[in-house]
């Protein structure tokens, strides 16, 4: 079985893109174009249906929306500001604006999704959540929301990641969550998802699976994107205020599973003049490799071998260390509405240092991927305005980066003209 077979079709010919239709609701089968769906065991079918119904009801319920908005304002600190990067912009000749999700409580965009799903958990009458985590950001956000709402929380984390991110393991435990090691397979994020799904199959009647990105079976990719849409909606209004009524020329975000990118893109997808660009890690570029596959409940692009065994991703950033990508991103790549590019770990380190030194903002390694792409493309972007989703802060990454950069702390990594 070595020739690629029909699963290897290139991008479908979908005709002209309808800009208003992009980033709407998936169809009844949970598909965005040819991607998405609900590839799950029979035991989970009812729960996905229940979640879909609960979310539709909640999203149309002004009381639910008011409670979530209140938490986002008073607990998370929203709206997150948009910061203009004066020194960086001058240095590279591109006007760079940052959407500051790094200033959220718990330090990243993950909390937006988590609070929405935690409220949904309560609305469904469930008392327990399970979550997966890679770097620990989604796990910490889940443990935080569980503490806030008094829910039981179990976080699955690959054994390898538990060693790499020991401090986040402690944070989750301090917040009252139970952290369980995923010791099978590659012992990283994808295996943590496997373990969370295995837990859920056994406990689905009392437990909600609090998935951390725009992936998994329908309705998760859509539901998580809607919960992250607040990033894009806020940013669109903030940019218009800042730019005298104009929109940015380009919106760029890093793509792991794709939730921060989906959140910010959804605020701009209907504006044909705004280019949308996703930055994938070179070692985890599921869209870049362009091979469709099915894992963890949906059809999307997936890193795999010729027989369909899932490959391990490799990235400097644990949060992007995932061999798949959310199905809507696969569709946005298909239609051409979003362009996806892969950046290397070296480029990411340059960007990490550059933003720290020019703006006094230490980014997480994940959004440093988005900045790396802007730095690489700065000649082509000259004179344009770029909005970048600063999805998280770099505190969690400082120990790792200090091991790589040493006492010089990146002083020799100057921006090359």
């Amino acid at each position, binding site marked *: *079985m070595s020739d690629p077979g*029909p699963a290897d079709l290139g991008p479908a010919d979908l005709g002209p893109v309808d800009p208003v239709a992009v980033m709407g609701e998936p169809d009844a089968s949970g598909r965005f174009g040819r991607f998405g769906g609900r590839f799950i*065991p029979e035991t989970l079918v009812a729960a996905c249906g229940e979640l879909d119904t609960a979310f539709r009801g909640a999203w149309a319920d002004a009381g639910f929306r008011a409670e979530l908005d209140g938490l986002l304002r008073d607990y998370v600190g929203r709206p997150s500001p948009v910061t203009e990067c004066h020194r960086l912009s001058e240095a590279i000749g591109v006007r760079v604006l940052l959407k500051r999700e790094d200033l959220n409580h718990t330090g990243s965009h993950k909390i937006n999704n988590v609070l929405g799903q935690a409220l949904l958990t309560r609305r469904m009458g469930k008392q327990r959540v399970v979550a997966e985590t890679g770097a620990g950001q989604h796990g910490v956000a889940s443990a935080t929301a569980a503490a806030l709402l008094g829910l039981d929380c179990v976080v699955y984390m690959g054994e390898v990641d538990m060693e790499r991110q020991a401090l986040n393991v402690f944070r989750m435990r301090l917040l009252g969550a139970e952290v369980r090691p995923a010791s099978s397979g590659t012992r990283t994020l994808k295996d943590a998802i496997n373990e969370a799904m295995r837990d859920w199959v*056994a406990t689905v009647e009392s437990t909600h699976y609090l998935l951390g990105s725009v992936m998994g079976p329908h309705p998760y990719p859509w539901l998580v994107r809607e919960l992250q849409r607040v990033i894009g909606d806020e940013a669109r209004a903030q940019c218009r205020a800042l730019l005298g009524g104009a929109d940015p020329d380009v919106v760029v975000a890093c793509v792991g599973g794709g939730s921060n990118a989906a959140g910010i893109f959804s605020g701009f997808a209907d504006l044909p003049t705004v280019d949308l660009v996703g930055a994938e890690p070179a070692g985890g570029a599921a869209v870049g490799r362009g091979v469709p596959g099915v894992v963890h409940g949906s059809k999307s692009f997936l890193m795999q071998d010729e027989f369909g065994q899932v490959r391990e991703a490799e990235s400097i950033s644990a949060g992007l260390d995932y061999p798949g990508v959310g199905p809507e991103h696969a569709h946005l790549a298909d239609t051409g509405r979003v362009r996806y590019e892969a950046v290397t770990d070296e480029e990411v380190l340059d960007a990490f240092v550059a933003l720290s030194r020019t703006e006094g903002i230490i980014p997480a390694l994940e959004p440093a991927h988005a900045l790396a792409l802007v730095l690489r493309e700065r000649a082509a972007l000259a004179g344009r305005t770029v909005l970048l989703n600063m999805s998280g802060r770099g505190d969690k990454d400082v120990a790792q980066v200090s091991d790589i950069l040493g006492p010089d702390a990146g002083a020799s990594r100057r921006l090359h003209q």
Partner: protein
Amino acid sequence: MTEPAIGRLETHLRARRDGGRKLLVPYVTGGITPLWTELLRAMVAAGADAIEVGIPFSDPVMDGPTIQEASLRALERGTTPATILADLRAVAADVDVPLVAMPYFNLVFRAGPERFAAEAVAAGISGVIIPDVPLEELGEWEPAATAAGLETVLLASPITLDDRLAELCQRSQGFVYGVNLMGVTGERAAVGEQAGALARRLKRVTDKPVIMGFGVSSADHARAVAAEADGVAVGSAIMRRVLDGAPVEATAMFVAELRAALDAG
């Protein structure tokens, strides 16, 4: 002596059931050892009525630790769907019970459903169980299976609602696979209450053979679960023995014990 593949699984199981026999469907992870087809033949000799052949996948979300470990070991040996099918072709002539392949969907999707189905049939496989393809996604696979003459076995869970259970029984081919419990595969101290309740619900709505699996770990379990259904599927209890290094004869002996317990009723 090979019969046509079309409908063979259901015809065979019905005939044996209608003859008053409780059905025994043991599982083996394809490629788990170099001699895995020896084990397959020994299980047939020990009284299996059909055999499930697991096609190992990197991310088996419906499987507990034993079958995860078995899958990993098989993959580390270099097992691929192609090597499993080649091994099966070599023994097909002396295996006189139907074979049911269990891949996860990505293995099928990557090969292309038509090609996967055609190659499975060519290797003597009669039926396919894909645990991550529920009714809603059956359109991704069923047309290819039907065209190739493969029977697609569907799984029912303890919380599947009545309407859906009826539809599922109607669409399932070969037999209906009842999942005994909420959870993944793996040995348990007890199978639990839900198995009997689901088996009774299934028997009320279908005349197709009803085989109950997940958690069946001993001869006693097998007898108790089969009492409410047409038979049992046994996986982890067999694969644990293989992983522990039991010789083929010892594992086959366990299958013979299961057979004896079912026959004693």
